[in-house]
């Protein structure tokens, strides 16, 4: 087989699509532990609250491709880089010329949240578990979500307002601590509270109560919360079990170059499984990054001039059940902050900048110009018009102070008369 991809999440899927497009004559095999491959994990909260059908979760479009083979419901147990071989848990072997590891992450479930023989506890990660939760929820509407990161906040926001009573527990003193500044997260907190979500910040799960084989209550911050359904969204760890006996790990990390190559030149890696080494260690485990990395890895697998990732940021965007949110990056040490705020309208926009360039920020409540700010940040463009001006949610902002038509040429197909 010319190439084998381990993992059918978004990085693996995008890699498969890109590989077939880039190398139409080469054959590829995709191996995944789950029975279904090619669904959008980020939409699982909408699936669980029954506002989205299962059919809509799938984006798979290569079923009839004769050069693409999918082996699903099978786990890769180990890799033998010397013989370029994968060992599967069904005792079969798969040989490869190039390998892409996109095995993703596995949810962290704190010990206290996994009592024996207890129903009603769901780690938010896979479609199989989401299906169980979807069936379970209607009769068990008292919900507790553990973890105030992107997955936990999204799960809580989408369950609220569907006849569920929702509480959210986060160990830090703010929500989305890896994505937003404390000031920006206040708006998200206000939005969730408006949806009658009970927030317990700076708290962890201390104990759980099980009655008749079901979760009954959760103790956090010294208080007992009634709980019939417990969602665990406390983060994830790279799924690297298949590499435990290989020489590819460094202190349990799968480190890759910016071109997504591992220590073995025939093995590439992408998505939540990797740590990127580029003047430091980066773990930008977001959905948009997984897409970019999957595609890049596929292109580099047989390329004589492999390309590097040019963006290692944790840019993200979402609609938290009524609150629009753009994350450009967390506060950077030494960076200045510019803020545009209209508390009455629920709008907060901030940019972090250094040496006249955008290095992070967030747009909450009004995400106007998000695409252009993201573009400017990516290209390292110098901001000419001042950051306060740039933050205003007006479409004409970008034209102020730049009467030259050259700027327009980049954004519209301009037909100029002769001599202009």
């Amino acid at each position, binding site marked *: 087989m010319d190439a084998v991809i381990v993992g059918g999440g978004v990085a693996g899927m995008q890699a498969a699509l890109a590989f077939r497009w880039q190398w139409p004559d080469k054959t590829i095999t995709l191996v995944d532990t789950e029975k279904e491959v090619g669904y959008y994990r980020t939409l699982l909260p909408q699936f669980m609250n029954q506002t989205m059908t299962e059919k809509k979760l799938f984006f798979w479009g290569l079923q009839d491709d004769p050069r693409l083979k999918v082996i699903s419901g099978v786990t890769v147990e180990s890799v033998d880089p010397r013989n370029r071989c994968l060992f599967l848990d069904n005792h079969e072997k798969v040989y490869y010329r190039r390998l892409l590891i996109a095995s993703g992450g596995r949810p962290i479930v704190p010990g206290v949240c996994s009592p024996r023989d207890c129903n009603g506890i769901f780690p938010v990660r896979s479609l199989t578990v989401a299906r169980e939760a979807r069936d379970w929820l209607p009769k068990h509407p008292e919900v507790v979500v553990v973890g105030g990161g992107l997955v936990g906040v999204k799960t809580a926001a989408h369950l609220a307002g569907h006849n569920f009573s929702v509480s959210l527990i986060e160990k830090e003193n703010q929500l989305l601590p890896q994505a937003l500044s404390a000031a920006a997260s206040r708006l998200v907190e206000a939005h969730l509270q408006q949806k009658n979500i009970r927030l317990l910040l700076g708290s962890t799960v201390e104990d759980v109560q099980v009655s008749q084989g079901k979760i009954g209550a959760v103790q956090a911050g010294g208080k007992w919360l009634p709980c019939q359904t417990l969602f665990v969204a406390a983060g994830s760890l790279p799924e690297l079990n298949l590499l435990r006996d290989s020489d590819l790990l460094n202190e349990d990390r799968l480190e890759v170059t910016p071109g997504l190559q591992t220590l073995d030149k025939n093995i590439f890696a992408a998505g939540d499984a990797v740590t990127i080494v580029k003047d430091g260690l980066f773990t930008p485990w977001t959905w948009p990054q997984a897409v970019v990395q999957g595609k890049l890895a596929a292109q580099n697998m047989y390329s004589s001039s492999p390309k590097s990732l040019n963006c290692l940021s944790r840019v993200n965007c979402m609609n938290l059940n009524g609150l629009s949110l753009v994350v450009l990056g967390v506060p950077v040490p030494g960076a200045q902050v510019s803020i545009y705020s209209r508390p009455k309208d629920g709008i907060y926009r901030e940019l972090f900048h250094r040496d006249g360039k955008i290095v992070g920020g967030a747009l909450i409540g009004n995400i106007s110009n998000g695409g252009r700010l993201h573009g400017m940040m990516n290209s390292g463009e110098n901001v000419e018009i001042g950051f306060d001006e740039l933050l205003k949610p007006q479409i004409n902002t970008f034209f102020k102070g730049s009467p030259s038509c050259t700027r327009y040429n*980049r954004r519209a197909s301009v037909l100029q008369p002769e001599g202009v």
Partner: protein
Amino acid sequence: MKAIAVHLDRCTGCKTCELYCATERGSNAKTLLQAVQETPLPQARVRVEGSSEVPIALQCRQCAQAPCVDSCLTGALRRDPESGTVVIHENDCIGCWTCTLFCPYGVIYPWPERKIALKCDRCLYMESPVCVDACPTNALELVDIEKYEEFTRRKRLETAAGLQENEHLAGKLLLDLVQTR
């Protein structure tokens, strides 16, 4: 493949394109008088931006490698295989706004009231784009991409030639200055 281009010298910023686009593509009634009374208010896919001195009508450029298509969570943004146009299939759009963040030109707009994103599809299933038909000064024109690229290539060559000439002049001025001293 076709693209909507704008003649900078003809655009007056009158926003007629916006009105007609919102009415024809965003309203139920399809007449301006009734469209302005609809809730939610119909939204346009073309937006007039720029300063009052130099206005410009902007719409999607149908990028060959479209970041919006790559970023779309649900596959609602798809390229029409025949025309090459990037189209939002509204039934599949869930209003997550990811495409708006990944469009470097800022020409995909959230429409929160309908929970969908809006972008120009060059009125793919109509005879011609309504903004082009409606523009009172013919500032908007439907052109072949190849023709437009040839136009921009020529402009670049002209600009480069102008720069070379300026460099030559600058060198001559410097030489004059040195000789004078």
